[in-house]
């Protein structure tokens, strides 16, 4: 504990680590509880998208769902790394990182190492890789603030950034997750709901083609629940894609700030 001059003294966050809010979310069979932000169980947070957030990139997008805020930049198509083998089709390279202040305790964002490859797998089916042979498209995401459902927001935002960069895709990719809390399915969960969930389902799809590019199910699920969850996600993805499309068409897409 002793702080040494010159070295970095060990520090701790004064915020209570054991949350007392657990009682707020009733995990038992009680059906009537209210979500912390007052939403209905099947209601998503208001989504905000903006393209052209980073001028240095070929394409970029900023997404804000409640407290979840992410920026995605797309670079390329550009020369592949020297060590790469020859490839007839293009390559997709994805990376997701967190800011140190994204989480309530500083520097916890590095736990999400798997997000980079999950983003890659969610997008690769939607991109026409044949349209940029021998080159690489880089998709880099930075989570500015983590507020729950981070990966679905990153995926949707990334597909918008790809569209902004003019990368050919079969369709926009929209992603939504649901959490299973007791008997209830809650869509677009916030951090708190995610930490008490019994199971989670994340669905990534191309809504106009009605094709799923990625489906992740973890935790306890019954078959009818999975069907219900998937249907909720598909409907929400379709709605999300309309908002994303509006953002691409909108007159404010080229505006600053």
């Amino acid at each position, binding site marked *: 504990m*002793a*702080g040494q001059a010159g070295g970095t003294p060990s*520090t701790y966050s004064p915020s209570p680590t054991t949350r007392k809010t657990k009682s707020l979310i009733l995990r038992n069979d009680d059906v009537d509880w209210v979500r912390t932000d007052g939403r209905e169980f099947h209601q998503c947070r208001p989504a905000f998208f903006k393209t052209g*957030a980073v*001028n*240095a990139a070929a394409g970029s997008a900023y997404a804000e769902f409640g407290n979840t805020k992410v920026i995605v930049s797309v670079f390329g198509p550009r020369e592949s790394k020297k060590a790469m083998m020859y490839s007839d089709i293009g390559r997709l390279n994805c990376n997701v*990182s967190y800011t*140190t202040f994204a989480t309530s305790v500083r520097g916890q964002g590095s736990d999400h190492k798997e997000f980079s490859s999950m983003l890659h797998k969610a997008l690769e089916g939607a991109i026409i890789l044949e349209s940029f042979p021998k080159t690489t498209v*880089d998709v*880099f995401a930075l989570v500015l603030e983590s507020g729950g459902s981070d990966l679905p927001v990153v995926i949707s935002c990334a597909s918008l950034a790809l569209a902004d960069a003019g990368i050919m895709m079969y369709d926009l990719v929209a992603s939504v997750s649901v959490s299973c809390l007791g008997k209830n399915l809650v869509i677009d969960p916030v951090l708190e709901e995610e930490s008490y969930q019994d199971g989670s389902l994340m669905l990534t799809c191309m809504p106009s083609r009605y094709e799923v590019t990625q489906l992740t199910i973890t935790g306890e699920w019954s078959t009818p629940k999975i069907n219900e969850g998937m249907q909720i996600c598909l409907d929400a993805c379709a709605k999300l894609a309309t908002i994303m499309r509006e953002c691409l068409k909108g007159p404010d897409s080229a505006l600053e700030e």
Partner: protein
Amino acid sequence: MGLPDSSGGFLSELDVDAFRRLFPLQFYESHLVKSKRPDGRSLAKARETSSALGAVASADGSALVKIGSTTMLAAIKMEVMTPSKESPDEGCIAIEFYMPPICSPIVRPGRPADTAPVVSKQLSDTILSSGMINLKELSLISGKAAWMAYLDIYCLDADGALFDAALLSAVAAFSHLQIPVVSMNDEGKVVVVSEENEGGKEPVNKEKRKLTLCSIPFSLTCILYKNYILADPTAEEESIMETLVTVVLDSSGQLVSLYKPGGPVLAYTSAIQDCVALTRQRVRELQTILDEATAGMEVD
């Protein structure tokens, strides 16, 4: 588009964009002789600057700053540490500057930008030596507990003058900083006093929610090229004309630091004096921008 050096059919046939890419120096010189820059600014003019406080809800203090396209997001997280024996009633500030791969095509994951650690060092040198923050104000209980302020600055869009934008965002984040009210619990740990468990322990820092910022440092980076001085360069200008001078002055106009990290142009005293004069003007602009941002917060 009549080029000033129409030295033959080849050059005049090039369109402007190709000329800009192939002969960047000539392209810039053709503008500089007219005392204009390609983006329409005069040589001494800085780009439009804006600052928004409280951009990150999960931090204790934060600010988003834009100078032209260059965007910086700074956030402060307060943690508790045991102060060192030499200075039992002083807190600490840890400053880190990041250039994530989203900010520029030259940064890739696993291959960080060379400039990030340089800016990081300059920032902590400037902020700590300017005396802007009295470290004694970060003390909680003498010898037992003090604040460690983690200031992390992320470059979201890199388009030149990174240090200027980063310093402004750092200063703005400190002016937005709201220190949480804490108390000492039975185990000797410092915990946040929340609304729920009011009436527990007596808070130790009820009056010390804000830091007093005195002599705030502001900076301006200039490019020296031949006899020209270009204030607040873009990334393109920085890559073409490599000699940079960064002057940091505090709000009372005193010199805090001056960087001239090499470069092919050797500066005369007069050039440095011109840079300082330009910075003096810029400090007033930046002070107004910062004041407006803080005033906007107080209204809310």
